[in-house]
């Protein structure tokens, strides 16, 4: 068990590789109750969220979920978030555990400056969050709910009961697999966990810890805010231009991001694969000659692809796919290559769901 932003969490249960493979091939379950939840509601909630986050709510229907970021006025990350649209003017922002307090005070201070009828509530204590992930996760949950899971499309959610506990069933996850995240009252979380464990026996579902969560998300090319990007990284530099609502009105950082888009960026977060036998880790330097020109932001040996991969912030001229780069792995110079992301993409299901 490790301390994670004040939450006591397991790094692994049966082993990172075992858990990782369970999620890729069958199903795994994560207790991710540490994630923060912030509710934003009121007449001016749409304007508020449009101002605070870079993605565009015009592309978000009630019942749908959007990946976005809380941006600074220079287009860098306060946090990356998921925005749930509960109603036209009612949103749930799911934020990183370590950033919940920072995000709340950021949101409040920004909104105080512009005014309006909007209430912002830290709802984190109201929700436990259980992620059930993997190609066989629908059949596990089907045992426990009358909600039509096939009707919940990727990045949509529904309200309903799982194991007799009312909550939100969200078709999302941080693994690159099909799966669900269940928002339930904390007092009921153990009941839901136990019921999923029981129903998961048929597919050999495994409980999974922070270790597999990290290797799975990295293999899927998903960023970890605080590791891959932070308040010094612009949304474009993080390779997340697709979450910027270019067509919407002004928002925090819009000016800088539009200028970066027009003029290009000097550095970029890229995926890489090791060529030499070595594992690059967070903080290792990317070298050009003997100069440190970039840095590895995430790196691991991935259990499914069985390769050493990672993300690195490199000068734009080294960011093209196929570019050879060199990384200082604890004093040893190791060759790597920029590759296309994601490293892993799940196979398309035979039937549409």
């Amino acid at each position, binding site marked *: 068990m490790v301390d994670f932003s004040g939450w006591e969490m397991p*790094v*692994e249960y049966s*082993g*990172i590789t075992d858990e990782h493979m369970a999620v890729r091939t069958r199903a795994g379950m994560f207790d991710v109750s540490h994630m923060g939840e912030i509710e934003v509601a009121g007449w001016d909630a749409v304007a508020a969220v449009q101002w605070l986050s870079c993605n565009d709510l015009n592309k978000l229907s009630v019942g749908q979920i959007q990946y976005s970021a809380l941006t600074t006025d220079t287009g860098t990350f306060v946090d990356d978030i998921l925005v749930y649209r509960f109603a036209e003017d009612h949103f749930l922002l799911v934020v990183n555990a370590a950033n919940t307090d920072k995000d709340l005070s950021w949101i409040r201070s920004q909104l105080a400056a512009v005014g309006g009828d909007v209430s912002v509530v830290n709802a984190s204590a109201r929700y436990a969050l259980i992620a059930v992930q993997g190609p066989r996760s629908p059949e596990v949950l089907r045992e426990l709910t009358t909600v039509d899971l096939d009707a919940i499309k990727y990045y949509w959610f529904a309200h309903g009961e799982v194991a007799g506990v009312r909550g939100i069933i969200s078709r999302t996850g941080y693994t690159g697999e099909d799966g669900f995240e269940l928002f339930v009252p904390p007092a009921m979380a153990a009941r839901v966990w136990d019921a999923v464990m029981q129903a998961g026996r048929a597919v050999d579902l495994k409980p999974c810890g922070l*270790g597999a969560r990290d290797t799975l998300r990295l293999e899927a090319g998903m960023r970890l805010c605080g590791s891959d990007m932070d308040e010094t990284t612009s949304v474009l530099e993080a390779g997340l231009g697709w979450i910027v609502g270019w067509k919407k009105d002004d928002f925090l950082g819009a000016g800088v991001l539009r200028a970066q888009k027009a003029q290009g960026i000097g550095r970029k977060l890229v995926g890489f694969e090791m060529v030499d036998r070595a*594992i690059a880790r967070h903080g290792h330097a990317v070298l050009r000659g003997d100069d440190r020109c970039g840095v590895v932001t995430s790196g*691991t*040996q991935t259990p499914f692809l069985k390769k*050493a991969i990672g993300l690195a912030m490199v000068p734009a001229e080294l960011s093209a796919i196929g570019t050879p780069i060199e990384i200082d792995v604890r004093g040893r110079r190791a060759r790597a290559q920029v590759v296309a992301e994601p490293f892993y993409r799940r196979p398309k299901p035979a039937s549409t769901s």
Partner: protein
Amino acid sequence: MYPTDLKYTKDHEWLRQDGEHVLVGITDFAQRQLGDVVFVELPEVGRQVKQHEVFGTIESVKAVSELFSPVSGEVVAVNPSLASHPEAINQQPHETWMIRLRPTAESAEIGALLDSSAYETLTR
């Protein structure tokens, strides 16, 4: 239970006498702390290592650790199968050797290592 024919270090390496050589690996306790081993970096054959000196690194999915030599000696071989099958360290930690050393005649070094019951006490 730690095998009684091995000697142990406080850094969680084991040593097995094999004729005039010794074999070195890491203990079951160490592999459980590390989790799934994915990479082992071993020294060149012919290198001289001193007791307690770093002879290589071992990486699991979650962590990197240094490997310390239980005794002084010359590396006469490294386990060739670890490059492709590092998971053997998790599966059979006390059977999976990493380096073979020719100790430099200081048997006092070996004598000072822990026996299995002392090591077990250490890891409790």
